[in-house]
């Protein structure tokens, strides 16, 4: 690989890093936490609970369940998981990120079937 290729690669990566975010800058802390929680949910939870949190054959519909649950309980459940039933512990995520997931889950509306 010659110097020119290296330079082009570096410039490409720098441009990607500096590119403006696709979403507008979020100033409301609650909205920011909800969006961050949604992103974390997609990364860590959607594989089992579904991209829309409506559940799959592996894991339950969260839209129905979380509205009645206390946020602190939900945080504790995400932290501990339920290892015997296949729900992993997410204590590896910092507290701040687990609270962002809770914020997102509490923002979900029940699915049509659950109403």
């Amino acid at each position, binding site marked *: 690989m010659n110097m020119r290729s290296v330079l082009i690669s570096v410039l490409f990566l720098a441009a*990607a*890093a500096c590119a403006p*975010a*696709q*979403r507008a800058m*979020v100033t409301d802390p609650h*909205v*920011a936490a909800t*969006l*961050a*929680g949604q*992103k*974390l949910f*997609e*990364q*860590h*939870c959607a*594989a*089992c609970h579904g991209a829309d949190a409506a559940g*799959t054959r*592996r894991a339950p519909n969260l839209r129905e369940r979380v509205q009645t649950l206390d946020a602190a309980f939900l945080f504790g459940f995400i*932290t*501990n*998981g*339920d*290892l*015997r*039933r*296949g*729900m*992993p*512990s997410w*204590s*590896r*995520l*910092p*507290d*701040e*990120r687990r609270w*962002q997931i809770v914020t997102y889950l509490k923002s979900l509306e029940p699915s049509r079937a659950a109403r």
Partner: protein
Amino acid sequence: MLRLSLIRLAKTAALALLLAPLASAQESPWFVTYDHHMEEPHQLELSFEPLLASPRHGNRFLASALELEFAPRAWWTTELYLDGQSTARESTLVTGYRIENRFRLLMDEHAVNPVLYVEYAATNGADKTLREFVGFDSWRDLAASNSQSRLEKEREVETKLILSGDHRGWSIAGNLIAEKNLAGEPWEFGYAAGLSRPLALAATPTVCLFCRENFSAGIEAYGGFGEQQQITLAATSHYIAPSLSWALPDGLTLRVSPAFGLTSASNRFLMRFGVSYEIPMGR
């Protein structure tokens, strides 16, 4: 030969970047130290962990393990390693395989969480993946040529007690290692300990590549404790290794860790790299 291996490694990493499916990935930056976190069920994690070294009285080499990690249960993770190495001016060869199982002993999170680790390894003497250091392991083990060392067959059982916890974003772990060659050799002991933290604790609202939340920095120390009849730190090898991991949004994690030998029995320097990504299993 080493240059060719590095080019292959770069191609593998690039291919993995292109093919990586959307899946969770939250890897610790450590290479030797284990923590209590298991693989998530329904995910298959593929890892490739090359190690580059230039022994004091031997040829440079690139050793690597291809790892396949799977969790049959949320409290049980099993892993298969296929080891190989390429030594400059000598040869390239497959050096064996290892099967490990990790079991969480407590079902809830505690300040300190114990995990039992059991591994069976069927390798030959040319294995240079250096996944841990036990007994009186030293740089001398790497000095023999591949043609000689590959003739030595090793069947080993390795156990670890893993203790770890997460506190305010910090991950702390300590491992006690006991390894026995089944050819009747004594138990050998070792340790590993690590500390790590993400560079940002909260996530940003947008998907990003270079934001601080995607990086974790850590440090780990590992080495040998001697043998059953001679538990000691004298004439054993010890290392200190800063480490960095970068979790890309698409489930790929890249890691790097230079390790510095601290005693005369240690290799002076080891360079570890890691590429891993997770594939969802079934839907």
